[in-house]
């Protein structure tokens, strides 16, 4: 099966899809009986700890491990010299346009960010591992560094890597931007800044590794079991000798898409031949884990007097930190989505990832496509003000529709229900609130977005799934999918149940094992419902089609005239039915296999980085958020009074989980908009404690009201669209829009703290004095 053969069925036909049953993993979660990566112990298990650089840029002039090795209870102290192949090569865009820069597993002679691993130890207890790590004596000579994108690009700037500080620069151009801007009736412009952000999953990075039958086995909290190949490369092992098992994660949000504990656990297990556990301290995770890219976004937008957008010029700079990680792809997504859900005929976009001596930035829910929402939505609101149009009216004049061309020359081949999401989100808010007292201003904001789901198209993505109807009529699913907690595995069970009629309680799903499960690709890019959902859907349909003639024969009916439901197969015209167990037995007797492996392939395409034309993403999820805020003009405090979100998810496989994704994404977005700032000063992470990093708590923000549009036109199973990442994208723009509505000045820097809002109020007062000096 390929992406071209999209099949949808009328909604009324569904029994399981569209309902919200609680799957077994959620039962285990509320019982407290789920075993996460850290909840694993083996006899003789050692405890690993990483020795990290305290400096952001330095030369290593010596490492002395003698004292650490001599400490009783220490089993291994390893440095770069002990790593068989000390390089991680990440070509995130497949080498299409980025520099090739390797990252060492353990730094040998140079450290490029604070927290970079230099050595790794294993000892009998966590306390001993901690003490041993303290005893590793590393001599450093400090080197000059660069800590923001502007100085990193200045002439003569210190080089983070010898090849230069510009990792990649994407270009997308169409039409004649200069001409269109010159001819536009109005032109607005703005520069928008976003910050470093921490994923702050509640479960820190963790895992346990051991040797079993000569196979290095790691059970870790990861989004990507396919890292097994990289781990094999680092250790110089055949890929068949490394197995990665993904535990159900305590959250990931992209932060467990790159390797975290894996190579260090692997080295320690390989050297000690003993089981090893490694759990990163929260404080270690804050300093050294990957972050969201801070962006500088410069926008210029031209429009006709009637509000039709004619041109947009966008320059994006992203701080990649010290190593490439997934930055090339993040900045690509930013470029591909920089114009949002709007039709813009003349476009010029550059999107550049820049090396600095900050902690590496990489995948984080939204992945570049979320930062730019603040850019394009700010431009839309500014245009509306300049043209005297309402914000909704201006948007409706410019929304993309099915059949439109994107700036990359791609034609949109699914419906765009963004207008509907806008009206529904606003309807959820109801009447605008009045200020609660003197010195308070209220405002309403909206933010629309277009967010991709699925990998960039030139990766020719694929996912496999294996289904087996057991002799007793129960069903097994095997899939390499990893589960972040969003119900990735549960959704696959619902899809299989829908097609094969096995009751959900009779289905067991085995996931996240690189040795035993057919590969599904990682859980990222909002791709698993799209990819593995389609794989399971097609595997189930193919298995049903293979068994249907047997059932038809037993029932005296036509194979096309069968209903698989409630653990039975019925002829739609008759009263008779057989159980799935009877069907399995009949198939067995006729030597017809009741197990089936299916591989689903996404549509393929190519992108030309020189022309900036070609295929980017398979499809998009559209949505709108709306909010009412109150601003305290004395303190600058912004209180979110009401918050509403609406997205077109195509088809809600499990509506409660869809709501949960939207509510959770919106809440993370509120933190990004208003409170969260992983401040890094001259390469030094400032929030060394979790208490200093302010993720939303129960009291910070109101409930997130949700409405769901089901257009049925997604490219996922049964017309579904992905919803994992999209709902974080709209929030900052929505809050900025509401603040602008309240105080008349547009925030352009995140997070929108009371100090910054006060500065905007001062700016407004200043402007008022200049206009009216009396």
């Amino acid at each position, binding site marked *: 099966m390929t992406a071209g053969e999209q099949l949808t069925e009328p909604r009324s036909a569904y029994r399981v899809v569209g309902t*919200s049953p*609680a799957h077994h*993993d*959620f*039962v*285990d*979660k*509320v*019982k*407290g*009986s*789920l*075993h*996460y990566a*850290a*909840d694993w*112990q083996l006899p003789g298990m050692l405890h690993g700890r990483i020795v990290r650089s305290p400096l952001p840029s330095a030369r290593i002039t010596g490492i002395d491990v003698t004292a650490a090795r001599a400490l009783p209870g220490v089993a291994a102290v390893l440095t770069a010299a002990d790593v068989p192949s000390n390089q991680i090569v990440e070509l995130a865009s497949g080498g299409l346009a980025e520099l090739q820069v390797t990252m060492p597993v353990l730094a040998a002679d140079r450290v490029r960010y604070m927290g970079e691993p230099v050595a790794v130890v294993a000892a009998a207890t966590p306390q001993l591992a901690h003490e041993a790590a303290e005893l590793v004596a590393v001599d450093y000579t400090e080197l000059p560094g660069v800590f923001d994108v502007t100085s990193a690009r200045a002439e003569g700037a210190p080089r983070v890597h010898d090849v230069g500080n510009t990792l990649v620069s994407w270009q997308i151009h169409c039409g004649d931007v200069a001409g269109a801007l010159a001819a536009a009736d109005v032109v607005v412009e703005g520069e928008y800044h976003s910050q470093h952000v921490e*994923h*702050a*999953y*509640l*479960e*820190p990075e963790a895992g346990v590794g051991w040797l079993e039958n000569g196979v290095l086995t790691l059970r870790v909290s990861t989004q990507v079991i396919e890292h097994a190949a990289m781990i094999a490369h680092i250790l110089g092992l055949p890929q068949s000798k490394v197995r990665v098992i993904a535990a*159900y*994660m*305590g*959250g990931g*949000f992209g932060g467990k898409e790159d390797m975290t504990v894996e190579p260090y656990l692997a080295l320690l297990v390989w050297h000690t031949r003993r089981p090893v556990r490694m*759990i990163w*301290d*929260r*404080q270690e995770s804050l300093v050294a884990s990957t972050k969201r890219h801070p962006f500088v976004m410069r926008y210029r937008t031209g429009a006709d007097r009637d509000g039709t957008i004619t041109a947009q010029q966008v320059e994006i700079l992203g701080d990649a930190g010290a190593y490439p990680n997934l930055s090339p792809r993040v900045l690509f997504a930013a470029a591909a989505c920089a114009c949002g859900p709007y039709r813009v005929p003349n476009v010029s976009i550059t999107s550049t990832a820049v090396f600095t001596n900050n902690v590496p930035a990489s995948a984080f829910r939204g992945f570049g496509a979320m930062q730019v929402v603040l850019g394009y939505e700010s431009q839309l609101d500014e245009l509306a003000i300049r043209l005297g149009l309402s914000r909704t009216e201006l948007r409706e004049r410019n929304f993309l529709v099915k059949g439109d061309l994107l700036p990359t020359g791609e034609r949109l081949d699914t419906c765009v229900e963004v207008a509907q999401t806008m009206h529904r989100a606003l309807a959820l808010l109801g009447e605008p609130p009045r200020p609660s007292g003197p010195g308070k201003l209220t405002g309403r904001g909206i933010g629309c977005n277009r967010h991709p789901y699925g990998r960039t198209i030139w990766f020719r993505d694929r996912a496999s799934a294996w289904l087996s109807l057991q002799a007793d009529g129960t069903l097994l699913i095997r899939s390499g999918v990893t589960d*972040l*907690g*969003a*119900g990735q595995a549960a959704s696959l069970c619902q899809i299989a149940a829908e097609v094969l009629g096995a009751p959900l309680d009779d289905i067991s799903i085995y996931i996240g094992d690189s040795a035993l499960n057919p590969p599904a690709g990682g859980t990222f890019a909002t791709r698993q419902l799209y990819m593995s959902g389609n794989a399971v859907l097609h595997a189930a349909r193919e298995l049903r089609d293979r068994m249907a003639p047997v059932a038809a024969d037993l029932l005296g009916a036509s194979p096309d005239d069968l209903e698989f439901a409630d653990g039975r197969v019925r002829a739609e015209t008759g009263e008779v039915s057989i159980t799935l167990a009877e069907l399995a037995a009949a198939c067995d007797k006729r030597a017809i296999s009741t197990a089936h492996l299916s591989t689903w392939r996404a549509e393929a395409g190519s992108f030309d980085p020189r022309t900036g034309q070609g295929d980017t993403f398979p499809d998009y999820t559209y949505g709108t958020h709306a909010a009412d805020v109150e601003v305290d003009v004395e303190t600058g405090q912004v209180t979110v009074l009401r918050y509403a979100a609406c997205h077109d998810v195509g088809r809600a496989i499990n509506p*409660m*989980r869809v*709501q*949960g994704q939207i*509510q*959770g*994404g*919106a*809440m*993370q977005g509120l933190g990004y908009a208003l409170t969260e700032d992983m401040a890094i000063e001259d390469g030094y992470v400032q929030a060394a*404690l*979790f*208490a200093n990093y302010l*993720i*939303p*708590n*129960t*009291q910070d923000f109101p*409930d*997130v009201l949700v409405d769901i549009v089901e257009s049925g036109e997604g490219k996922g199973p049964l017309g579904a669209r992905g919803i994992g990442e999209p709902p974080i994208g709209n929030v900052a723009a929505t809050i900025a829009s509401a603040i602008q509505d309240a105080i008349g000045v547009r925030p352009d820097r995140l997070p929108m703290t009371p100090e910054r809002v006060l500065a905007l109020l001062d700016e407004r007062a200043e402007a008022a004095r200049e206009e009216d000096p009396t």
Partner: protein
Amino acid sequence: MSKRQVVLGVNGRDHEVWITPSDTLLDVLHDELGLADVRYGCGEGVCGTCTVLLDGEPVNGCLTLAVQAAGHQVTTLRGLMGLGEAMHPLQECFLRRGASQCGFCTPGMILTALDLVHRTGRPTREEIRYALVGNLCRCTGYTKILDAVEEYADQAAGS
């Protein structure tokens, strides 16, 4: 550091454990007694994932020394369940309302909420927000957690 033996009452049973004075209650429950429902999240008392009830009151396992708990009764989430793994009604509400995503914060969240409802009867939604402020969740956005606790509070007040 020298170890000494203490008796910890955990989920209705006494356990004799050897501990050092610096061992946290979290470490002893998770690593010594194998209670996977008590989890390390931050070690600072900020996130609430290691919440347990100490003589019925919620405490952070990471900020409580095991010696402080000696001779006292500790209840973890698993301790709420009845025979045959029958779920507590509050757990049922969490399940029905979809109040758990990754599930990592769930035990602490349920224990803190249970204490609140038992102390106050039918707390308002704002009171629930106030009580749960020290239990962080990064997945759900809290709305469904608050719904679940309210549903349980309604049930508890009605019975």
